[in-house]
């Protein structure tokens, strides 16, 4: 009757991951909101179905939840600092439930993670995943997550039929637009709607400019640095630029990397970054040349 994890479809395991994280969060009193994949209303789901669980965690409780999951047999697959330029999510892995991405904020509505979480939490509705009650954002919140997720992944927003369907309902779309300023997502939402130039001069402008128009990983990191509101944040990001994601390297190798392997990867990334910067400077030089 019991099955090896490989014989359980990933989307089924993703549903169990949602339920398992919810159970852990409830036990320790940490608030979470389930987003994307099986957590969203049917009309907003992607055709392929999610293969991992995405969960937005109360920023104040995220450390506690990570510790609790670790005691329950979850391994940390990647960390906040090494996962993405946004530093927004840590990925946990469980031998039976698969992957869960724990978000301490969502890119695009990241200016004030705590206030944003409170706003989304206040509008929450009760969903059910794998037979477990799981809080999910309001319908407007789910649409906004979809829009910002498409934006971050450089997928079309305006031509996405799921978005178009909501836009066709003025009342529903008005609720999405009303939520945008309350979660400080004006610039990202503007970028998603093709109105990024209205936000030129804001700290986030370049970040979404690079995201929407494409750019190297270095350019993405540098744009993220420009978007950081504090010097401390900027310094932190600059220090992270050359960091090797040792978790991912370990998963690629199937064992903990040696110091020499981390060193080689560090040099490789440094060279790649230098090449990207040289290319960018050359492009800029060519543009300026008469």
């Amino acid at each position: 009757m019991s099955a090896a994890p490989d014989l359980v479809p990933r989307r089924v395991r993703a549903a169990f991951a949602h339920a398992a994280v919810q159970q852990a969060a409830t036990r320790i009193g940490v608030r979470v909101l389930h987003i994307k994949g099986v957590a969203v209303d049917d009309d907003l789901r992607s055709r392929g179905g999610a293969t991992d669980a995405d969960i937005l965690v109360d920023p104040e409780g995220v450390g506690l939840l990570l510790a609790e999951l670790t005691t329950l047999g979850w391994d940390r697959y990647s960390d906040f600092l090494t996962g993405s330029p946004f530093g927004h999510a840590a990925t946990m892995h469980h031998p039976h439930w698969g992957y869960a991405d724990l978000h301490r904020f969502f890119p695009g509505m990241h200016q004030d993670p705590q206030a944003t979480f409170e706003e989304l939490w206040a509008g929450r509705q009760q969903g059910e995943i794998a037979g477990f009650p799981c809080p999910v954002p309001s319908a407007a919140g789910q649409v906004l997550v979809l829009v910002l997720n498409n934006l971050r992944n450089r997928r079309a927003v305006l031509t996405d039929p799921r978005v178009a369907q909501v836009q066709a309902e003025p009342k529903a779309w008005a609720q999405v637009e009303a939520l945008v300023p309350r979660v400080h997502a004006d610039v990202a939402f503007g970028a998603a709607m093709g109105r990024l130039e209205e936000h030129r001069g804001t700290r986030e402008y370049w970040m979404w400019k690079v995201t929407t128009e494409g750019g190297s990983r270095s350019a993405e990191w540098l744009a993220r640095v420009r978007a950081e509101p504090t010097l401390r944040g900027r310094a932190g990001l600059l220090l992270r630029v050359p960091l090797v994601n040792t978790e991912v390297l370990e998963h690629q190798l199937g064992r903990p990397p040696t110091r020499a392997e981390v060193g080689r990867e560090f040099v490789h990334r440094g060279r790649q970054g230098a090449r990207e910067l040289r290319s960018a400077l050359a492009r800029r030089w060519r543009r300026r040349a008469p």
Partner: protein
Amino acid sequence: MTGDSMPGAEVVPRWSRAVGVAVVDVPDADEQPSEAGGEHPADGSAVPEAGGVVYLAPLPDGPVAVLSGASAVLYRALVAGDGDPVARVARDLGVSPEDVDAEAIDDFADELVEAGLIVRHGAGQPGAL
């Protein structure tokens, strides 16, 4: 109340999913899910099995229990709470209630109870359908 059908009486389920057990019911799943993660093997050789698949996950540790085909039908009948499991199984499989082995259903329920996946309610004695 044991859940025996009585005219005018509220029907109480004799079994329900155990607390802490998550469930995903895929009524139209193929019998063999692919290792790649979908319900359809890469070679497209799977034949949909009547009854689909029910996945049960005792949280937080697992592992997942997979009930496919007739087992899935039996599980749904046990936890449905809408009357006699024998009648429900007969209806789902499209056979006469006389053709359904009530003892087999009872044995199956005992197995699920023992595995901690469902719990028995009321004064019904184990083994009594």
